[in-house]
């Protein structure tokens, strides 16, 4: 259902406020009034208005100054200024300062209706534009879901059946398996597809930043909060919110999140007004939430609230039959992006890819193919274009010691175990190198 357009009328004359209020209410708009600029700015800071209709000449702060402040607060606000015939020059100044239009008092009823209708149309168009942008990006990303294996078919079937419902979904899988793509696919196939899909990477934000990111904040709520800001829950109204790395959120955030999921209402940081939003929640994690619940690290009630449907994405090593399809897809994708002719991959390289365990999953495969296209001969991807040689980063490295051991071994091999040349290359003395060889139990035949 189309949302009612809201109008704020700012005029110091009561009769003008009342007349306009009645006029717009009869036209089906949602109307609020303010008798001066200061009150109007307070209202604008705490609520959202689509159109602000303001008199230029008011005691105290005039309409022009108010317009500048509104524009500083909300760049895209639609402000229409009302002026007496004698002050048309001032109205022109207002247009230069970003006013949408002006009307001369008293107005012809038809002029006023036209003006508001045009402004409403612009609001609807920009909302539609935003929706279409989201739709396009969502559907683009669904095309990245490649796979013909039984495991992947099962996942896609689950996506299809869960998309039409409104249930919360948890997507689990190792890093790089494409959890966000699955979330996009669910959103793009749901009835919410024409509304935003808002993603939040919980692991990348501190607790206070995450709170502000999710719930929004009021101007002055904390140092650096220069403007009112909508939170992700508010942005996801009528759409879907995707919370990635959900297992990383703090206990305090778990409680707050649970409350929001239960009531679908929240208060902006530093605010006191409850805001409601109709969103669907999809979460993702590469950790075992159930065992986190058992260990008391993750709230059980939140777990059950989120885990209505669980979609588990298999790692790439468990669906090796999908590798050729994925390779072909990434070759096409990157050749197109880099404006190169379509190339192929030789059998030896493909066989090697099939044998590799891909701890970084599809993301790792994608990076490999992109790199191979960049450094290759432009005709065929061969084994030498793939990072399985000496320059390949060993994914078994988990600590500094592992790294040091691997690096020293690499340099020793490079100089055929010539200790003097290796020590010189490593910029250490021979004794230190011998100690390291001993410490890591390195041998020439390794």
């Amino acid at each position, binding site marked *: 259902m189309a949302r009612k357009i809201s109008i704020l009328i700012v005029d110091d004359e009561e*009769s003008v406020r*009342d*007349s306009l209020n009645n*006029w717009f*209410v009869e036209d*089906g708009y949602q109307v609020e009034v303010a008798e001066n600029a200061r009150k109007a700015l307070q209202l604008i800071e705490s609520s959202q208005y689509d159109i602000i209709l303001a008199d230029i000449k008011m005691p105290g702060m005039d309409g022009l100054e108010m317009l500048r402040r509104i524009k500083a607060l909300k760049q895209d606000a639609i402000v229409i200024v009302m002026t007496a015939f004698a002050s048309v020059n001032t109205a022109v100044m207002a247009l230069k300062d970003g006013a949408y239009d002006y009307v001369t008092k*008293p*107005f012809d*009823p*038809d002029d006023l209706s036209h003006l508001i209708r045009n402004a409403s149309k612009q609001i609807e168009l920009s909302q539609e534009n935003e929706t279409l942008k989201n739709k396009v990006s969502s559907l683009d990303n669904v095309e990245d879901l490649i796979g013909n294996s039984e495991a992947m078919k099962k996942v896609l079937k689950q996506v299809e059946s869960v998309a039409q419902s409104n249930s919360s979904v948890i997507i689990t899988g190792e890093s790089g398996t494409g959890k966000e793509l699955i979330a996009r696919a669910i959103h793009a196939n749901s009835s919410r597809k024409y509304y935003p899909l808002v993603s939040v990477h919980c692991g990348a934000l501190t607790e206070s930043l995450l709170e502000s990111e999710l719930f929004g904040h009021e101007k002055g709520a904390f140092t650096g909060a220069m403007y009112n800001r909508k939170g992700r829950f508010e942005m996801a109204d009528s759409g879907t919110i995707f919370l990635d790395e959900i297992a990383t959120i703090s206990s305090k955030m778990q409680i707050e999140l649970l409350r929001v999921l239960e009531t679908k209402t929240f208060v902006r940081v530093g605010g006191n007004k409850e805001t409601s939003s109709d969103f669907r929640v999809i979460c993702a994690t590469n950790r075992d939430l159930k065992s986190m619940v058992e260990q008391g690290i993750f709230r059980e009630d939140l777990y059950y609230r989120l885990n209505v449907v669980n979609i588990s994405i298999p790692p790439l090593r468990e669906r090796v039959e999908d590798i050729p399809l994925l390779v072909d897809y990434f070759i096409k994708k990157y050749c197109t992006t880099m404006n190169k002719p379509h190339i192929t991959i030789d059998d030896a390289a493909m066989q090697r890819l099939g044998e590799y365990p891909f701890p970084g999953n599809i993301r790792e495969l994608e990076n490999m193919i992109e790199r191979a296209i960049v450094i290759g001969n432009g005709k065929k991807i061969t084994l030498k274009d793939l990072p399985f040689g000496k320059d390949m980063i060993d994914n078994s490295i988990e600590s500094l010691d592992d790294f040091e051991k691997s690096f020293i071994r690499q340099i020793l091999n490079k100089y055929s175990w010539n200790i003097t040349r290796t020590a010189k290359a490593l910029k250490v003395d021979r004794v230190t190198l011998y100690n390291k060889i001993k410490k890591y139990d390195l041998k020439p035949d390794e």
Partner: protein
Amino acid sequence: MTQQNITLISFGYLGKHFLEEIAQAVTREYTYPVIVKESHLDLNEFFDASRRQYNGNKLLTAVNAISNETALKTIGLFSVDLFIPILTYIFGQAFLNGQTGIASLYRLSNERYGIEPDDKLLLERFTKEVIHELGHTFGLIHCTTPVCVMRSSTYVEDIDQKDRGLCNNCRAHPGLIHGV
């Protein structure tokens, strides 16, 4: 017990036949009995010399003050040029979800626009205007259906485009409690 009615009060002579026709149309649309009265207000008190028009807000308040308690809704009928401070003119206005409205035929006649007089058309326009303002008193807002009487009209041509009656959507409005 007195049955609830819609009262039309004529301020100034509008013609008996004219008023009866409007009353019948209102009864047909809202199914309440309609009482037609004549009354008097000193219109000089409502005249704005700088605009050479009559203040619609003040007139609406005055009509509201004299409306009969037994009347469910009251519409004051005028033949003077109405304005409200922010608009150059109005055909009429009403308290949304209230008891009272006003309407004027001043800007509805063909002569006002230099066209041949047409009394039948004038009656038709005024009837629509009265039914429209009554709709507001029942809580109806402007409708987007082209032929609905509740469609907003800022020119007489707009009034001519619409019908006398409410569209099905407006008719189903919960505020619209029909009479017998």
